[in-house]
């Protein structure tokens, strides 16, 4: 009888201790709530937001200051891509300097909507022409805008890049 009463009150006290234990944690965090905030005010911190080097946001074709890229149109990335998000349209055109016919890209089409950012195209590229950009704000109002042409107008192959 007394044992049961003792157990009853012990149970209550233990429960209260457990509850207070939990409240101590949350109480601790609200006491220094300002210091411990873990969320970011995202669109406001755009200017200071620094992505990591290896962050994979989208595929970009690198151009240097003379509007030259390193893509020879070998289509290795197109083959490597699991989703068919890269399409390279190339043609043999006459090189104005040597007069020889040379394979050149016309358009480097990139379907962002199909890309899974797996990085396989970057690994496949023999001339390091493409890399992963850091831009992650891809939302657009029209789906067709997600199909991008990566080579800039008038750009041509950088000198010295082997075919």
């Amino acid at each position, binding site marked *: 009888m007394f044992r049961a009463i003792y157990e009853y009150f012990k149970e*209550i006290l233990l429960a209260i201790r457990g*509850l207070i234990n*939990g*409240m101590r*944690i*949350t*109480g601790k*965090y*609200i006491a220094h*709530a300002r210091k*411990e*905030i*873990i*969320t970011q*005010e995202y669109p406001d911190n755009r200017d200071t937001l620094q992505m990591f080097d290896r962050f994979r946001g989208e595929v970009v074709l690198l151009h240097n200051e003379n509007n030259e890229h390193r893509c020879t149109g070998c289509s290795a990335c197109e083959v490597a891509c699991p989703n068919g998000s890269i399409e390279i349209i190339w043609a043999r055109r006459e090189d104005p300097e040597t007069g020889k016919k040379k394979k050149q890209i016309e358009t480097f089409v990139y379907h962002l909507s199909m890309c899974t950012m797996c990085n396989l195209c970057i690994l496949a590229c023999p001339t390091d022409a493409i890399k992963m950009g850091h831009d992650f704000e891809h939302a657009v109002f029209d789906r067709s805008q997600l199909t991008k042409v990566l080579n800039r107008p008038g750009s041509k192959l950088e000198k010295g890049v082997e075919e």
Partner: protein
Amino acid sequence: MYDFTTLVQSIGNFLHGQFSPGVATALEWTLVILVYLALYAILGLVLVYVERRVCAFFQLRLGPNRVGWAGTAQTVADALKLLLKEPVTVNKADKLLYNLAPFIITLAALTVISLVPFAKGLQAFDINIGLLFIVAVSSLGVVGILLAGWSSNNKYALIGAMRSGAQIVSYELSVGLSLLTMVLLTGTLQLSTIIETQANGWWIFKGHVPAIIAFFLYLTASIAEINRGPFDLPEAESELTAGFHTEYSGLKFAFFFLAEFVNMFTVAAIATTVFLGGWMPFHLGDWAGFNAVMDFVPPILWFFLKVSAVIFLMMWFKWTFPRLRIDQLLKLEWKYLMPLNLMNLVFTAILVYLGWHG
């Protein structure tokens, strides 16, 4: 001490001087209704904001901080959004009850705050059975919840409503009993008199251990009665999506939402009135200087400070504890709160019989 009696009386005299007695009374009522409706809306908006902010800080977030200064206009924006939303009515719902339910809940919540004494003389309805009235009216809300759950023709809503019925009927007892314990000490049911009896010390201090126990029992039971976490079973969002108000949208949902927060205020206000001395300032024995400083703070501020403290405690509970299960909830009431309350009542009776109280 600030006294609102003169102000209230002068308004009354002015009205009675200008108009015939019937019109004056009608105008008085209209005035009171308008003030309380405004208070209801403001309380709801402020509490929603406070809840979101406090919850955010508990969770290491910032919470709403864009609209208005530090996000203060966020709830206004949300209220506008809810107003503009399309009121969706379920096809096979019982239209009359479905539309009636939010109003019953609002009515119950509104009636209870009319009894709350905000400061001396600032009380709309000071009847001599105040506490009894509160206990009686506050449980009216369950009718609204049951109607909402039943009429919306949704199984989740029905389960939520049934849970709520069982929950409120049980916890009503504990709320009543813990307040009864305090009535033994105060010797009155009238809220203004209860506060008067605490002029020389709040009941939680001079009521010895039974008052402290009664305070926590009251708090637990009344949190359960107003369906707040950790007792928010009728709307347990992980089990029943939104419980009894699953099918409500727009303004009708806003009514439920506001009533929930105003109920929270009511609970805190009653706890303040009965246990924490209402609008009485905090006094420390013979420290005349300290007491004078405390007296300087207006009583209405004291009242709201105490209410905020209790509300903060309730939020702390909610954002720390997991939710109980329905059978555990009832077990808590019938196995722990009820017996403790009864024991407490006997102790208090002995205390009062021996004349040890205040």
